[in-house]
């Protein structure tokens, strides 16, 4: 496909980006009093009107609404995919792989919690025909061992089978599973990037994916140090090896921090200096996930506007759409559980 047709698809992605939710719409959504209010607003005042056209916004269930939202994003990617033949193809396949991997991880989480039978409720139906593995069969899995049997002929088997088989499913090391699967996923992602022919495309994708890995590593360090109180060696073992800007020195600096305040300070400095994405006024109420998301959001927005490479623009759009979905899920759950609008806003990224 010629560079000119790539430009057409890039323009199409820009148009889709233009239909994403605006800060004013987020304000309106946060001000909603109930899930039906949110559904009604999305149906009548946003680009989700299409997917919600026939939905009964008064009776709609929270999970159903979330599925509709995810479906809309997925339909957007599929619309783009129709026009991509060469350069962006790999990225779309990686996206499907990630969805598939997330489904496997969701099943592992439910197995650990002993609630595998609930898997079917949140299974996004639109993925059934797209994923390589049979998600209906996956939904019938009732043990970790059964899961390994089911995944026997898939790339996930070799990754998960390295783990020691737990005596009881409640003992599954979910973090380890997540790390191994993501590591494998990122490895294949970088292989795909290295096969690209354009230098600028490679650089941009490396930066985008690298930043995502940096953010995941930072969140991981923060969570393991603050919440699980693991020691530095254990934390180091669970970090992804493909960091972009998070050099070993920086990792050591974070790991060596004496207390939480000190670590917060280092992380804030790192964000302010390295990415320049955060304003001093945003330093209060430090939520690590929010800050990593802000960094990701700004970098993706930058590449969406500035890049001329279809793969980069597509991937940036994909990440921005995923951020929008998380925003909407935060809002839906926040409103459902009567969280104040100010508290919900602290979790949103736009």
């Amino acid at each position, binding site marked *: 496909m010629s560079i000119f047709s790539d430009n057409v698809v890039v323009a199409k992605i820009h148009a889709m980006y233009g239909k994403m939710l605006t800060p004013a719409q987020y304000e309106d959504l946060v001000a909603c009093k109930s899930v039906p209010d949110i559904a009604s607003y999305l149906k009548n005042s946003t680009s989700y009107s299409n*997917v919600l*056209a*026939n*939905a*009964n916004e008064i*009776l709609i*269930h929270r*999970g*159903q609404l979330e*599925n*509709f939202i995810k*479906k809309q994003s997925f339909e957007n990617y599929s619309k783009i995919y129709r026009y991509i033949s060469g350069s962006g193809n790999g990225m779309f396949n990686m996206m499907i792989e990630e969805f598939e991997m997330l489904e496997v991880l969701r099943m592992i989480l439910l197995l650990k919690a002993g609630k595998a039978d609930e898997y*079917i*409720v949140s*299974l*996004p*139906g*639109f993925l*059934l*025909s797209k994923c390589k593995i049979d998600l*209906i069969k996956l*939904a*019938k899995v009732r043990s970790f061992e059964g899961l390994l049997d089911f995944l026997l002929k898939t790339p996930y088997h070799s990754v998960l089978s390295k783990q020691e088989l737990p005596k009881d499913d409640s003992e599954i090391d979910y973090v380890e599973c997540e790390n191994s699967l993501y590591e494998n996923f990122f490895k294949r992602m970088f292989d795909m990037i290295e096969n690209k022919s354009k230098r600028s495309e490679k650089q941009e994708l490396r930066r985008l994916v690298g930043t995502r890995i940096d953010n995941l590593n930072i969140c991981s360090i923060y969570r393991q140090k603050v919440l699980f109180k693991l020691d530095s060696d254990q934390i180091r073992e669970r970090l992804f090896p493909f960091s972009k800007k998070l050099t070993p020195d920086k990792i050591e600096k974070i790991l060596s921090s004496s207390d939480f305040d000190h670590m917060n300070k280092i992380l804030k400095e790192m964000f302010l200096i390295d990415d320049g994405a955060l304003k001093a006024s945003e330093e209060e109420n430090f939520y690590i996930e929010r800050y990593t998301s802000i960094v990701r959001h700004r970098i993706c927005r930058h590449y969406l506007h500035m890049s001329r490479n279809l793969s980069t623009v597509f991937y940036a759009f994909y990440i921005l759409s995923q951020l929008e979905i998380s925003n909407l899920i935060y809002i839906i759950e926040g409103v459902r559980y009567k969280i104040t609008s100010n508290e919900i806003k602290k979790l949103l990224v736009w």
Partner: protein
Amino acid sequence: MAIDVMTFVNIIGKSSKLNDVLLKITECEMFHPEKVEKKSRASGFKSVNESNPYVGILSKINKILSMLSVDPKFEECSEVQMDDRTNALVDDVFSKVKGYVDKISKINVMLDLMDKSLIEIEHMSKLSVKIDDVFAAEHIDACFGRMPVDSRLKLDYFKDQLFFFVPLDQEKDFCWGIYITPSKCADETRKCFKSLYFEEYCIPDYVHGTPQLAISNIKSQISEEKANLEQTKASLAAFKAQNMRTILSVYSKIKILHDTFSYRKFAVVGQKKFHINGFILKKDSEKFVKMFDDMAEVVVETLAVEEIEDHAPPVKLRTCWLFRPFETYVKMYGLPRYEDMNPSSYMGLVYCLMFGMMFGDFGQGLVLFGAGLLAWKFTKNSIGLILTRCGASSVLFGLIYGSCFGFEGVFAGFWKLIGLGSVFPMNLLEAKNSMNILIVSFIFGTVLILSSMSINVFLGLKNRQFGKALFSCNGIAGFLAYSSVFGAVILIMTSGINIFSPIFIVFAILIPLFIIFFSVPLSNAIETKIKKNKSEKLEKFSAVTATFDMIDIVLSYFSNTLSFLRVGGLALSHAALMLVVMEFSHMVGALGMPIIVLLGNVFVMILEGLIVSIQALRLVYYEIFSRFYNSDGKPFEPARVVFEKNV
């Protein structure tokens, strides 16, 4: 350029006569009531603070009018008496109308439900068995509804469960169908379908037989209900036609009593007397006083406005018919004070001149004139009349520029005929004329600023505000400094004479600026000398503030004058836009030319018309009004009963 002269009126009489006096006042619509100030009251007089007894009944009759979709208006009501009979009549009419309206809304709700059911049952139309048979089975449970298409794909997961799902219809994202399960498994199956976001639809009691039969039954029931609805509406319409005049008469009576009562808040009462005061137009004073001749226990006293200290008189603008529509723009900015002048005519003249200069096209001016007339005829909006004046001005300047619908150089014969062929028409796109129009705009702006300063001086002297008239940046000092600088610049531009000598600069520019700098102490000195009231707080002088003010004043003299260059600029842009239109029209050939010329003219008229209107208004508000105009006036609003609006 006038404001109507007012007279202050005191009305004093027996308390029992207050309602009659208020009725006369609201009927004549001449009296602008004002609250009686405490120091004007006799001892023992207190404000009337009563709740309006007509609020409840007025609200009821307003509801009747609203339910009947009748616009409230006046109807002769002299024979209506406010007694128990009228109250009973209102209650009776209200209950009857409400009865009809409730019945109509009930039928509408029923129709909505049946429409909805019809849509739902239509999704079942593939089902060939009787609906009752399906749902009345003893050992099986059936449930009709829809679920997302995605969920249907997940049905495979439940294939071991004891149920089967019969898809009946599919729309964009949803699949309609019926699931059937043994009664003993009903709960479990319901749980499964709940997890698939299955939305259950209840089949209404009136649905029987096969879906096809049910559809035809519902359709016939809908027709019956519609006929019933029409019949009820016809009954209501007949009731309305029969009682309309009576209802409006009663409404008018209640509205008069309600609104008149509401003016009691302006009165004070005490010692079995009342006192109310306000303003009337001086020309109406004799007629107004005579109205109370038949009321022996009521005294009406008129006083000249100058004798009143407690009340600022209201303002009623009086403008000649030609510029009366521009009162709208003046009111948008705010009314002038009673002691100032009515700027409508001045504004109208300046606005029309600027509009014509910027939008000079004979043909387009005629179209604007016609559009204005039509707008006035159909909407009665004063903007329509403003458009006619602006259109006339465009016609005049179109003659001067020799422009008609973008065709330049026309009317040469006309100008030759009156002996001005060597000067006009003035094609703006010629280089010398382009420069000339900018110079004319500059001079025009200077003259307007000077005339605004003159008005400020006149008003200052008239109202004995000598500081404002003599020392302010828009007073005599400002006038001297500004006219000296810009007069000299204009002399250089037009005739090449340079009068900037040291003596001229010192006496005509620096000394006036020096006076402006010290305007605060100078004003204070003069105010203290003239006014006896020493307690009035005087403004404090600060050298720092004065310095910054001075910089601002000098800069604004230049920026405000240059601001008028837009008049010439927009005149040129209008000509240039029309040139583009004409060029396009030549490119498309003889057939397309009229279409392009027509579309181009419409486009330019809308675009330029809007820009020019806004720019002219901006120049008037910012560069002219800011020099002399105080918009602190309050409007003259005589007491009256408003029938047209619901309260």
